[in-house]
């Protein structure tokens, strides 16, 4: 077993410092060390996107990164989307459009949608699909998710705010 390394990560605005094994995956760090269980493990081959988070402003799949790679980085997880207990407009739109069923892929979907809208506030349907193409959902048939992201984009643009 390789020697542990100290890392310092900002997650949802809060600083976490831990000694971790170099082989510890980032998803396991988030779930088992930081106790943030909203990020889900679904495939271990970077295929399903259930583990998607935002790292330094870019979407990333946390199942195929090491925790030590996140040293010094800023992470946003699904737990960090809502503000003062109020759903984020993307979350609100998912609720409104029945864009989730079992909910297991939902946190990853939300984070991919968040990243998309942060880069492209006025996406076309083709842009939305492109933005969600790395996330698998087995329940919804995707179309309600596309509708939710479209609606969230409209609401955010009207309010003139960034996601």
């Amino acid at each position, binding site marked *: 077993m390789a020697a542990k390394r100290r890392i310092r990560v900002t997650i949802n605005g809060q600083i976490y410092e831990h000694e971790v094994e170099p082989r510890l995956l980032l998803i396991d760090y988030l779930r088992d060390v930081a106790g943030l269980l909203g990020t889900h*493990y679904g495939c*271990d081959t970077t295929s399903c996107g259930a583990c998607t988070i935002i790292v330094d402003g870019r979407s990333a799949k946390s199942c195929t990164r090491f925790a030590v790679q996140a040293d010094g980085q800023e992470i946003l997880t699904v737990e960090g989307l809502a503000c003062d207990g109020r759903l984020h407009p993307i979350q609100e739109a998912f609720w409104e459009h029945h864009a989730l069923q079992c*909910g297991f892929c939902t946190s990853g979907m939300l984070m991919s949608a968040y990243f998309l809208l942060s880069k492209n506030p006025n996406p076309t349907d083709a842009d939305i699909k492109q933005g969600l193409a790395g*996330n698998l959902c087995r329940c919804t048939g995707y179309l*309600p998710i596309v509708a939710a992201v479209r609606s969230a984009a409209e609401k955010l643009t009207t309010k003139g705010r960034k996601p």
Partner: protein
Amino acid sequence: MSAGPNAGKLVGTPMRRKEDPEILLGQARYTQDVSLPGMLHAAILRSTSAHGRIDGVNVERALALPGVVAAYTGAQLKEVPYLNPMAPFPFQSRDPFQKGNPTIKFFDHYCLATDKVRFVGEPVAVVVATDRYIAEDGLDLIETDYEELPALVDTDRAQAAGAPLIYEDWGDNVMLKFRVSGGDVEQAFRDADVVIKEEIHSGRFTGTPIETRAVVASFEATTKNLTVWDTTQIPHPISTLIENTIALPELKVRVMAPRIGGGYGQKWSFYPEEVLISLLAILIRRPVKWVETRREHMVGTIHAREQIHRIEAAVRKDGTILGIKDHIFANIGAAYPTGGLASIVTTGMFVAGAYKIQNYAGEVTGVVTNKTPYGAHRGFGKSEACFVIERLIDIIAEHLSLDPPDVRLKNFIPPDDFPYVSVTGPRYDSGQYGRALTKAMELAEYSRWRAEQARYRREGKFLGIGTCLVVEPSSSTRMGSYNAGYYSVRMRMDPNGNVAVFPSGSDEGQGHATSISQLVADELSIPFDDIMVLEGDSLACPYGSGSYSSRFSVVGTTAATLAARQLKEKILNVASVMLQKHADLLELADGFVFVRENQKERVALKEVSRTAYFSIFRLPEGMEPGLEIIYHYRDPNIEFHADERGRVAMFSSFPYDAEVAVVEINPETGTLKILKFVTVHDCGNMLNPLIVRGQHLGALAHGFGGALYEELPYDENGQPLAASFKDYFLPTVMEIPELTFDHLVTPNPFTPGGFKGAGETGTVGPPAVLANAVEDALRPLGIKIRQVPLSPMYIWSLIQSARKRFSGRPTTHLGNSAAELLEQERRQRHRDLP
């Protein structure tokens, strides 16, 4: 009974779900999120050999690794005196119909392989360690020695004389044989103008929920209480099965399935890990957790669908189908306790589909092979039956030069015939198949696309139109099994007037809490948000068969409705004492019980509830205290008495779906583009149209996957060739076409709410309708589609073969030349008609 879709305020309304905020906030807890003090982590070594005799498994080196707490082989666990083989499931009887038909063989599989391994992925040994990483390190240190045996992957080879035996004491490789028939099929064939013989294959694919399976077990040695958190659709049967398998005296098992990340049938099975992890918690006296990796899931969690149908149809020249004979061979992999046997019996029951065919003989053979065990998947056996009959209709139309929808319309069970007893016994509740198909064709602009197709063909392009009508029988019962044909609900109004509902199933994302709250809010006239639903706890909830076969919307909703009505009766009886008025004169609305004729005479519901709990001496003797009831609802449309021909009414509601697809094929790549897809769906009254639409869309996505992309191939040595999401292709958002979606509403006459099952028809249709469309597109090349998935490779290779066949003929482009040749063949065939 009363109540249409909008009789109340909330039923029939597209309400957003009460389950969602917790999920959206990342606060919903799934089985893999369960963590207990002192918990250990298990990793499982699985067979890499498809068929081999175990000469030795040695875990000593793993045990020496720091952090490893325990490691076991199958041989070691077999020595545990109270461990039994896994109990059969769901037919717990060798003779479930009590008629000697089907015949079933069983094998005593233990939770880890003992003598032989029989498929790649079979659990062989286990390592338990302080964390998952170390447990997996331990797997690398286990030494295994298999004597390789010849692997069987093909049902014909497995049935051939001299084939190696997967279970030596069986004498052959046939696990199940079932015969079902009705009418006089031989006479039908004598009366036929044409007999059509075909072989149609259904490919192996599966549900792959994004949440893999997981089990966490915790054992209290003093009380012998074992709590098992489990990704299962059937908490109660699993608690019973674990108790039967781990026969430790005084063991009591509580199964918790609080929130499941998708099931689709894959979590309706009895798995070795459910026994193994429970047993480890007992042996080690510490909580143990196991979370399946995706690779484990692809080989260790059930597959479905793989069947060959050798089918014959007796047909009149006008397209009337007189009778059908079908020999069905299911490739069921290893003989594990799954729902696979029940699913293939179901296929045999529903080959006649939506059609009035009263002469039928089916024979189902379940053949074991060295593949992953075969089990349930959304569409459960009916998908395969539908694929075959809907393909057959198009083949008949082709033979007789008829338009396929006309053959459908000619043979549909007419609306006036419902309830309709099918040739195999089930009583179809209601339906308007002709209207649904006609509507779907109008929405799809069928005639316009036919004209367009002619233009495409002139240009040498390949456009095809497919139609199909899916009937997806739902809410099944199998006597002598864990599918017991009733649904129980416990319901309590507490002293503050809040209502708690405890259904006996489990929720894998269907939104049961929302649906039940809508029903109960209407019945008791209380706010939607004052209702709490607790599901998936075998101790707290009434015993039940769990969630499968779309049964919640049929029997679950009815049990909840009738429970609420019984609770209301009790409320009115208590209020009757308080108001000194006969209960018949009282009404319950908006949180009050009042006298109908004088609404000022009233008492708050909360007061009634408090009286029932805290002032029972105001109530007459004999009236039970409190406001808590349990209601058991027996499925009204089941008559489970199989006759000597195998006929039995084992499904109770019959949702259906008419689908039309227009596709264009690129002959150079074999890829297809869906230009139009229409679905006209009928699940009776809709409790929550938003949820119904979601269920149907999701089901369609599964259907597109199975039709176009998803396949679990094996090489000749039994090695799986798709064992991750890198080689098993689920549809992404990019693969879902725009859909035109409409409904008919034909209420189920057997339940008070008029609901049918919803959420499976969509899975069933796309393989059939897309195969029909692809064959239609490639008709100028004479290409026959006899299997799914319709992968680019499959289509491309068919086009290549056709090109070889037609090469050398003078042609400006391939299509026209081929069309001429095929037209000659068709004319020849018609001359041969009597």
